[in-house]
């Protein structure tokens, strides 16, 4: 018999691993939904053999949570450590180790950054999945004792015009509208502005959409709370919503491939958020932090109570004793293991000295947020759980939490080089098609559904230029504290490039992130990554991952930008396909004075237009290829040294000269960048290009910007003197975008193409 009902007045099973052979072990893992492989199951058997007893269901479930890919990064840690986590900057207060990265902002404040994926739940139930993604990332920021100040949501779906949808998959437009509504309804209700993001459509996301959510918070440096218990004798207080069956096995679910029947099977893994519990929860937590009443705080995310108590205790070198019947429940009849691993939303775990417990409970009561004492920190590195006075769990925390780690084998595939790009048949038509392409066209449909101005600190908004007919900006700038100092945020990756070449594609994403930060006149300061890949057990997928992380490490180290937080999401794969490598990057820049931030819309007639940077023929993964159907595998290259030199020069130029507007050159190259500046302002321009027009206009070489300046010649000389490339290409003014002898299109026509490129799919 594999399962034996224990002699308790509630549901509890002893699992007979001691007598189980390999086949039985696999069966146990499957039947209990543990998602552990045979090696891991054997390790567990060995452990309990040494204790001379069988585990209870709750103990096994707890191990499965702690050892899931999602919780312990067992497949990625080894490469991340080798390749990425060694960039130091003296202003980083805490990187990687906790739920969120903490970085110095000024003498008094630190900013806090977190970035996560919510892919699987969103594919099954886009509305609830995306909403709880927002809920989760807010908790990550909150548990550091920080006030969340901005949300960022990069989104990736199958093509909007997809027709053959595999069974069990939902249409990309259904997913898009569900995800955006979920983020809107949750983000707007909790009152944190969603200020930036990205939206990319690609066939590879058809069966696995990618929903990443990032958050930035601000905390007083002397009030930062660590995700660990204070010390033996402290009490655990569970605050927030009640615990239910929602979200059971969320992490083990996120750590396996989606299958056709996933929808039916994994419904319970989808959690549903309640922003109207979260909003007061944020206030109550910040009030107890402000009053200095906590010794530690951590959010309940993947793995629920099981992970939070284990990790908080271990981090403090302590153990814990938990009284599980104290946990407020949403429904009756839950088994202890379900309570222990449930991922119900809106919950936080605090540790508090006994003398402060009453004060903390009062504050939560005042905010109408339930809070109860559920356990105690002990000094023995053992976790014990009692349920109505029965001891149902006793394990060494070290064994449970410090789990497995793999350096999985990988292969790197190199594509054959193709460079079959030539002049377009009709250059004006090509430009209009590019502007109305669903990966480039106006994102207004999304941006306006989000309240991007609540908290009244969004200084540079995602939409810029003429009122009610704005264009896109490069990064949003918020003013998180009372000074004029600001934080710029952007999210970037180009999956056309990463799928063609994970290495140069990732390097390009880094380049683009930096370009966007620089374009608004912010100094790149730190970044977070959300690495979305396929099944790491497949060597090719692992190869993509390693290449990508290598490029990221190389760029970050060379440029000197610390990676302060991140997330790895594997298994974004179905039997139909895997997602393209998607290392989404969230960049943070510092704006010394938000009044000096620069926006992308042309400001005045007759000013000079300067192109900064070097252009060569690099069309791999370009919009030009997507629109014309031509082929190239030449993904733009870059180098951290060059990027760094140009960055410094750009920022210096902003100080030296009058720069009215600036925009980086990305998808669609120079032509699209300039067209966007025209559209945002309603003002035309005329430029002159050297060399083959289609290359200069459409190539997507990295490290380039366009500036609108007063002192053209001086600006050009300034760059040239440093050995950098800059050229005066034309002037602003007029009602059309003219390229001497090449094309002339009315701004209104550009505007029309660009404005309805997405809404023709979404309906308005």
């Amino acid at each position: 018999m594999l399962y034996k009902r224990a002699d308790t007045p509630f549901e509890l099973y002893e699992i007979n691993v001691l007598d189980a052979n390999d086949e039985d072990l696999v069966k146990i893992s499957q039947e209990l939904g543990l998602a552990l492989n045979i090696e891991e199951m054997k390790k567990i058997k060995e452990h309990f053999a040494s204790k001379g007893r069988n585990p209870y269901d709750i103990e096994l479930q707890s191990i499965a949570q702690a050892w899931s890919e999602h919780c312990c990064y067992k497949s990625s840690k080894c490469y991340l450590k080798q390749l990425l986590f060694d960039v130091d900057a003296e202003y980083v207060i805490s990187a990687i180790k906790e739920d969120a990265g903490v970085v110095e902002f000024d003498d008094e404040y630190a900013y806090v950054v977190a970035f996560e994926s919510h892919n699987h739940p969103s594919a099954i139930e886009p509305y609830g999945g995306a909403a709880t993604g927002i809920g989760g990332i807010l908790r990550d920021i909150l548990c550091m004792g920080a006030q969340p100040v901005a949300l960022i949501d990069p989104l990736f779906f199958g093509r909007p015009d997809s027709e053959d949808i595999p069974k069990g998959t939902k249409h990309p437009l259904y997913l898009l509208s569900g995800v955006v509504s979920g983020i809107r309804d949750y983000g707007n209700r909790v009152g944190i502005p969603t200020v930036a993001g990205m939206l990319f459509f690609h066939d590879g996301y058809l069966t696995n959409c990618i929903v990443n959510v990032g958050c930035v918070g601000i905390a007083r440096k002397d009030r930062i709370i660590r995700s660990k218990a204070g010390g033996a004798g402290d009490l655990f207080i569970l605050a927030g919503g009640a615990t239910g069956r929602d979200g059971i096995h969320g992490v083990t679910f996120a750590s396996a491939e989606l299958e056709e029947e996933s929808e039916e099977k994994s419904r319970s893994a989808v959690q549903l958020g309640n922003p109207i519990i979260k909003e007061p929860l944020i206030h109550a937590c910040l009030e107890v932090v402000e009053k200095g009443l906590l010794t530690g705080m951590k959010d309940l995310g993947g793995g629920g109570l099981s992970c939070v108590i284990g990790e908080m205790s271990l981090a403090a070198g302590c153990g814990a004793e938990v009284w599980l019947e104290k946990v407020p429940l949403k429904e009756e009849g839950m088994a202890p293991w379900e309570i222990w691993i449930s991922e119900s939303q809106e919950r936080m775990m605090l540790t508090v000295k006994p003398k402060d417990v009453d004060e903390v409970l009062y504050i939560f009561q005042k905010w109408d947020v339930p809070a109860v004492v559920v356990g105690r920190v002990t000094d023995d590195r053992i976790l014990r759980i009692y349920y109505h006075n029965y001891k149902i769990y006793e394990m060494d925390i070290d064994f449970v939490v410090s789990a497995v780690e793999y350096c999985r084998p990988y292969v790197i595939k190199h594509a054959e080089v193709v460079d079959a790009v030539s002049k377009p048949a009709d250059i004006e038509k090509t430009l209009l098609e590019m502007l109305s392409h669903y990966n480039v066209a106006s994102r207004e449909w999304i941006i306006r559904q989000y309240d991007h101005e609540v908290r009244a600190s969004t200084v540079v908004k995602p939409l810029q230029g003429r009122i009610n007919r704005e264009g896109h900006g490069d990064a949003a700038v918020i003013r998180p504290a009372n000074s004029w100092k600001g934080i710029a945020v952007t999210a970037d990756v180009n999956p056309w490039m990463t799928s063609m070449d994970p290495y140069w594609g990732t390097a390009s994403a880094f380049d683009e992130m930096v370009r966007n930060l620089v374009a608004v006149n912010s100094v790149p300061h730190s970044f977070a990554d959300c690495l979305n890949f396929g099944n790491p057990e497949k060597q090719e997928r692992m190869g993509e991952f390693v290449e990508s992380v290598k490029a990221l490490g190389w760029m970050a180290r060379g440029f000197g930008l610390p990676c302060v937080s991140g997330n790895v999401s594997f298994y974004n794969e179905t039997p139909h396909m895997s997602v393209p490598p998607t290392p989404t990057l969230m960049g943070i820049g510092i704006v010394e004075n938000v009044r000096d931030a620069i926006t992308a819309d042309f400001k005045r007639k007759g000013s000079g237009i300067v192109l900064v940077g070097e252009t060569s023929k690099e069309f791999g993964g370009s919009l030009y290829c997507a629109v014309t159907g031509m082929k190239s595998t030449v993904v733009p290259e870059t180098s951290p040294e060059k990027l760094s030199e140009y960055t410094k020069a750009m920022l210096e130029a902003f100080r030296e000269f009058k720069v009215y507007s600036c925009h980086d050159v990305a998808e669609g190259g120079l032509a699209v960048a300039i067209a966007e500046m025209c559209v945002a302002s309603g003002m035309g321009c005329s430029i002159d290009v050297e060399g083959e027009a289609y290359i200069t206009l459409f190539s997507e070489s990295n490290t380039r910007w366009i500036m609108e300046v007063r002192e053209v010649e001086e600006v050009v000389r300034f760059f040239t003197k440093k050995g950098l490339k800059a050229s005066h290409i034309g002037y602003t003014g007029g009602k059309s975008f003219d390229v001497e002898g090449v094309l002339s299109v009315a701004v209104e026509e550009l505007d029309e193409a660009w404005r309805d490129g997405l809404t023709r799919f979404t309906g308005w």
Partner: protein
Amino acid sequence: MIADVYIELKEGVADPEGEATKKALRLLGFKNVKSVSSRKVFRIEIDARSRDSAEREIKQMCEKLLINPVIQNYQIRWVE
């Protein structure tokens, strides 16, 4: 033909609207309220040859747009 599509949340799915409404009603002094849940109804007028074909079409509308099958159930009730 006119049908009401009656949409409710599946058992066990959180209903923040119902909960908030219950809390508010109790605070207003309606202590006898034991539970509140929220539902949504779309009244749809449709041209069709038969009730059967109309019903088939409405079912498709539900599946394609009106409901979220992961968390909601629906019923069709004929009004006319």
